[in-house]
């Protein structure tokens, strides 16, 4: 279970003042839940994810994971970054082996596990011998998922993981993610720009408005598997769009292409 208690996060500005990004945020994510974080660019989605990952500490307030305060990154809270962030000097297989080795796995056990996760993510042994520069965006993201799934994380923190991929690849990876999530019941926190993506994937959506301190969560009342073209789905999307905690100053945001599930500029 992930708990945020009155979390406040600000960044110092050059002129000595500081800019609040998150203010007084309370959030509880239960085990096995799929939570999407939705909001316009710059509203603090990545900042929030970084707090839970343990990359940064809150200015005030507490972030707890299963009752203990998060003070550093750890494999139990694995992160999938927007652009994969693989180690360019390691082959795909060795990228996947990186975390496993740190858990003390070696020799045949290690090789077997790497092969298994290559296969789970739909990658071949030949792909495993490649260096990251030779991969397509979709393949990189598969590797980046494989290397964290192999560590059996309790929570999966994903920062717009599929947003730079084409629609086909994105939808295919979304399906695979849902399948894995259903099989393992890992907690997933999934940052996105896209209302459609949030509505399709999540149990619940955290709507982060452009001004700090105005956030709320909205449940997604849809059964799975979901149909992107059903009436209810479209209604849910509308409800999410209209559900932001403040009249979105940016009418631009409401109608921005980001939120239509389309391409980012």
């Amino acid at each position: 279970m992930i708990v945020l208690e009155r979390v406040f996060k600000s960044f110092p500005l050059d002129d000595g003042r500081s800019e609040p990004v998150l203010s007084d945020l309370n959030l509880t994510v239960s085990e096995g839940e799929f939570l999407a974080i939705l909001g316009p660019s710059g509203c603090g989605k990545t900042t929030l994810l970084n707090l839970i990952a343990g990359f940064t500490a809150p200015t005030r307030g507490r972030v707890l994971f299963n009752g203990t305060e998060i003070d550093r990154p750890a494999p139990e809270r694995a992160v999938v970054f927007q652009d994969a962030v693989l180690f360019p000097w390691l082959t795909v297989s060795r990228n996947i082996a990186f975390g496993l080795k740190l858990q003390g796995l070696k020799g045949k056990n290690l090789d077997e596990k790497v092969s298994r996760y290559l296969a789970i993510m739909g990658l071949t042994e030949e792909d495993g011998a490649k260096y990251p520069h030779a991969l397509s965006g979709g393949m990189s993201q598969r590797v980046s998922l494989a290397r964290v799934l192999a560590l059996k994380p309790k929570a999966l923190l994903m920062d717009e993981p599929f947003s730079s991929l084409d629609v086909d690849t994105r939808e295919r990876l979304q399906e695979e993610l849902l399948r894995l999530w259903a099989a393992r019941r890992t907690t997933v926190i999934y940052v996105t720009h896209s209302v459609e993506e949030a509505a399709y994937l999540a149990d619940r959506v955290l709507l982060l408005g452009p001004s700090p301190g105005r956030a709320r969560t909205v449940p997604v009342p849809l059964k799975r598997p979901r149909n992107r073209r059903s009436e209810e789905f479209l209604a849910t999307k509308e409800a999410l769009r209209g559900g932001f905690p403040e009249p979105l100053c940016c009418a631009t945001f409401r109608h921005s292409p980001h939120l239509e599930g389309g391409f980012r500029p």
Partner: protein
Amino acid sequence: MTGLFRKMPKSTLSIVLLLTAWRLAAEGVLLFRGVPFPTPEETFLRLLELLAGKNLAGHSLYVHLFSSLRRWATGFAVAAASGVLYGLAAGRVRALERATSEIPQFLLLIPGLAWVPVAILLFGIGERATLFMIAVSAFAPIAVSVLGGAKNVDTRLLRAAQMLGAGEGTLFFHVFLPATLPSILSGLRIGLGTSWRVLVAAEMVVGSGTGLGYSLIQARWTLDYASSFACIAAICLIGFFFERVLIRRLERGTLDRWAPVSEKG
């Protein structure tokens, strides 16, 4: 014709052009100034004679070659070790960087030969003065390049490693170091050229008694210009060999596999 050009290695073309220009210069000098100027052929023949054991400034070419190489290797090793260690340390420790990062920048502005008085005051005329000049001149470009690379290591790579479970040691040796390797290699490459040039210059000035630079100047005193030119050719060939064979091979084994040049843009 262009097809023929394309088949030749790049360096062949450059060498042909260079030899042609040299040849023309030799003819021109003879014609207009009435002074014999060693042609490429004469130089090549003299180089062969020297290689066959002809005496040059009191020793065989091999003695000079060996003592230059020994000096160079010692000086360069000192510069490489201190430059790389300094760059890595200052890249990791903020306080060290703030206190010292301008020093190599200043050193970079001092031409190699300007160290002669300093070296002689510190060590007197002789071997150690030469080594000092080599080391201090090659240190700066190596330190600057390594520090630049170390400071700019992508924090996302470090974060990715941390969330996969890496501790400080793994982070340094398995992420920070390989991520800095491109800058280390390019620093070494620049330092190699610098130290080789400074070595030859130092031998010319400090009067080392042996060495390619020393014999180049000695041959000139005795108006044996062909031998001077043969020394220049030897210096050039050896420098070329180091650059191509040593550094290029290192790069090919690492950087090129991680991201081939053709794809870097």
